């Protein structure tokens, strides 16, 4: 598990590097497309080449945005898995993430909810995230509201319920 943590770390780094290279290319392609449109002027509509070029450039830009989102999701997941040492835990993590997604938690709320489930106190979470306790309490309340529960214990039993149901082997 420790090994796979490291590999995912270098995967994130590789993806980041790739993104920088693509951004570099995208800047030039966008400028090139603009220059080509200027050159073609009113004739632009008749150049098939320009359409393809524009499409390709836009695809690249969208790909970069998509990769960015993927990279952030990957890093988030990694940050939450940091202390996990077993595959079972990572399976639990997956279920938790699904649930967080269903509840519509923001990235910050997901992070706090993960700490909450791991048993950290409000002040410990504040320390870990470098924010004020009041902020954490506000986040906690919105987590409870979104999950439709009243307190920490209810969040835990909700998750435990999901895990027990999910992990039951299919008959």
């Amino acid at each position: 598990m420790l090994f796979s943590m490291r590999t995912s770390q270098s995967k994130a780094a590789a993806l980041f590097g790739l993104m920088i290279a693509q951004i570099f290319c995208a800047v030039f392609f966008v400028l090139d497309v603009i220059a080509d449109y200027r050159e073609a002027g009113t004739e632009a509509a008749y150049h098939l080449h320009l359409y393809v070029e524009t499409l390709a450039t836009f695809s690249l830009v969208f790909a970069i945005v998509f990769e960015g989102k993927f990279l952030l999701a990957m890093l988030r997941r990694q940050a939450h898995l940091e202390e996990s040492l077993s595959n079972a835990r990572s399976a639990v993590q997956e279920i938790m993430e699904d649930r967080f997604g269903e509840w519509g938690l923001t990235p910050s709320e997901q992070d706090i909810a993960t700490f909450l489930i791991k048993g950290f106190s409000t002040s410990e979470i504040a320390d870990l995230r470098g924010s004020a306790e009041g902020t954490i309490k506000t986040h906690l309340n919105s987590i409870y509201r979104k999950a439709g529960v009243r307190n920490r214990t209810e969040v835990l039993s909700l998750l435990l319920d999901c895990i027990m149901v999910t992990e039951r082997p299919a008959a």
Partner: protein
Amino acid sequence: MQNIKVWDPAVRLFHWSLVIAFTANALILDDDSKLHQYVGYVVVGLVAFRVLWGFVGSRYARFNSFPPSVAGATEQLSDMATGRTKIHVGHTPLGALMIYNLLATLAIIGASGYLMTTDMFWGVEWPEEVHELSVAWAEFSVVLHIAAVIFESRRTKVNLPRAMMTGVKTVPDAKGG
């Protein structure tokens, strides 16, 4: 709240002189004018000074306080992804990458621009191509730099532009109270 002196006067003077010189050459001055060349020399001088200052300057100005680090950069991205705020007193890892990017790009702009003025490369196409492409990249980088400064100031609640004016970073106490 805690006030920490981070940017020495030389770093700040360098930064804002560069802002003025780059803006002048990229947006205002005529590319073919003599003044464009002189301002170009100033930019090259500023970059050379900053590189030197990176070895002998004050603590946070030195390169060894912000080495290019992919691990550091992914860690900062990870903070962004999870909404955690870790305060960096000096340059952040992503900020450091931007600094190296800008210094290198400006050096390339300066070198290619200089070649365009020499007799040897008179009428040769590639220095001009390199010059224009690297200027485009620098302009994109500057826009990204400004956007990142605004984003990070809001995210970490540390006023970064003000720190570059006054030299003092006002950071929340280590333990979020």
